[in-house]
């Protein structure tokens, strides 16, 4: 990896953040490499949005529903830091074999696929509304 000097405190903070976001999306702890790369990617790619970091900190400190807040934020303002951070995480996990099944379907699953999409449409409506409320209540807008 290119020589990127990250202050140890920042690195530790970003690793904690990676773990929180990863658990929120996938329900388990990330591998060490993912957390490390997440930290580096944030410094390398998202420095221009650093002014929004406090919002992300509040979400994590308040143990808020990340998916809900992100979904609502993305509809309000697609180029927000939380969305970008989760997007980075998606890229980092996609290239690992253990996550392949989350991105690709190797066997026919037409009924399951239709049901899951329908469920997630309904779920997303709920999350979007919840996210809006959380944004309003915690001043994350």
């Amino acid at each position, binding site marked *: *990896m*290119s020589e990127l000097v990250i202050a140890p405190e920042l690195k530790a903070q970003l690793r904690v953040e990676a773990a929180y976001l990863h658990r929120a*999306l996938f329900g388990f702890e990330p591998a060490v*490499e993912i957390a490390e*790369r997440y930290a*580096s*990617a944030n410094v*390398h*790619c*998202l*420095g*221009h949005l650093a002014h929004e970091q406090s919002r992300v900190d509040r979400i994590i400190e308040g143990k808020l529903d990340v*998916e*809900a807040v*992100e*979904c609502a934020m*993305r*509809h309000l303002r*697609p180029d927000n830091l939380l*969305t*970008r951070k*989760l*997007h*980075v995480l*998606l*890229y*980092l996990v*996609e*290239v*690992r*074999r253990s996550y*392949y099944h*989350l*991105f*690709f*379907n*190797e*066997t*026919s*699953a*037409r*009924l*399951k*696929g*239709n049901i*899951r*999409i329908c469920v*997630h*449409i309904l*779920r*997303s409506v709920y*999350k*979007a509304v919840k996210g809006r409320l959380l944004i309003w209540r915690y001043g994350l807008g």
Partner: protein
Amino acid sequence: MVDYLIAGSGPAGVAAAYALRGTDCLILDPGSQRSGSIDLSGNLFDLRQRSEDLFDELIGENFESLHNLHQRPISLKLKAPGMRHIVAEQDVLCPIISDTFETSLSFATGGLANAWGAGVYKFSDADLRSFPIRASDLDPYYDELTELIGIAGENDDLAPFLRPSQGLLPPLRLSSFFSEMIDRYVRLRPNLNHRGIFLGRSRLAVLTKPHRNRPAYGYENLEFFQPLNPGIYNPAFTLRELTDAGQARYERGYLVTSYVQREGFVEVFARRLDTGTSESFQARRLLIAAGTVNTARLVLASTGAHHVRVPILDNAMSCIPLVRLSRIGSARDPNDSSLAQLNMVYDGPLFPEVLQAALYGTAGPLRSDVALHFPLTIRGNLECARYLSPAIGLLMLFYPDDPRPSNFMQLREDGRLEIHYQETPRRGVERGLISAFRRMGYLSSIRLCQFPRIGSGLHYAGSLPMKASPGPFELYPDGRLYGTEQVYVVDGAAFSRLPAKNLTFTIMANAMRIASLIRSA
């Protein structure tokens, strides 16, 4: 002194070199190459299921694949670590100022053909209507190129628009999504043709059988991550053949910056990129094949023509997703590839000229590149990526372009090129196509369509157009630049207009034509 100096090693430069093979021909080019030793082999999806971690190969140690998250967006095909060198030096070697026109310029050996879609289509007389040449002038070179590069396709419903071709290799395998689409088209053909819609197989510079010491394409699906697949034509292959056989010389690491027409020859100045020093070369003929934008910059700089306006053309694009509901949840299709599966021609009342589209599956880019295009939560979007992607085809519609006063390039004194372009709004044809495809069983909506910024098509052309009676910054029909005796332009800059059709094949045929004329003069 060399007989011929060619500036550029993309499709035009190499086609010209091929026509001049065996003569005293020197090709100069920056020739950017990939750094690092990442080498993917095999099928991408097999690799992804076998390899623990493909971070270095697919994301990159400098997070190259995350480029669009924090920088000016570039084509998804140009950002992977193995592909970044193709356009890496653009901002340094040819800085552009534009708020309205997206540019991607290549300084790599082979040019933008390192990332092309390999679509190869002959121009008809209708396509060439502003040109001072006819299709019959290009036909011998189309035929020679068909044999040289190997083209897969069929003479089908699109033949009247794409023109029949001899010597085609069998077409690529179709994915099940597009096999079904062509079957449904055949059943509804009379109605669809009546509406101006014609579907057929893409013509691609891709080998479906071994050809001229190159193996057949193996459906590796690595096109977004690694260039130089031997099954997909790249001008670098022909360049290597020519240089290995001693039929041309290639010096990489040079950026041609200007030329001066002398008595009986051209003095060409080039900057060595490793040292920054300038060297001069002398040639009896200079053939400029640096790509439309670079070629314009070179000619304007050489003539000190700051603030002279020259045209710029590109094919505007629309991207229409087509969803086949019955395919939701289908298994990933190993026959799907990132190459165009089908082509469509629209010749109907919604537009005054023939339009062309290429249809693609979703096998190419990383799923993360498109995961946030859906309006659901992140996890919902992942489910869409997984279960909905097999049910989606993408129709990329191209529009023609003709010179307009509002669309031009000009060179500033500081050496930067300004590009101004005013796009024409478009929605009418898209709605008509959505309606027609709905009848075929494919759903879409104008709200789902994307309209990439002009310039994203990478079909730049027309900055120094050929004319029957040219004036300043225009070309004679033989490619010679007005006001010079030995300077020729052989790339897309020479185009007088741009039909809604991939232009690379015609760029190459025209370059061969011009070079052949020069050789026989």
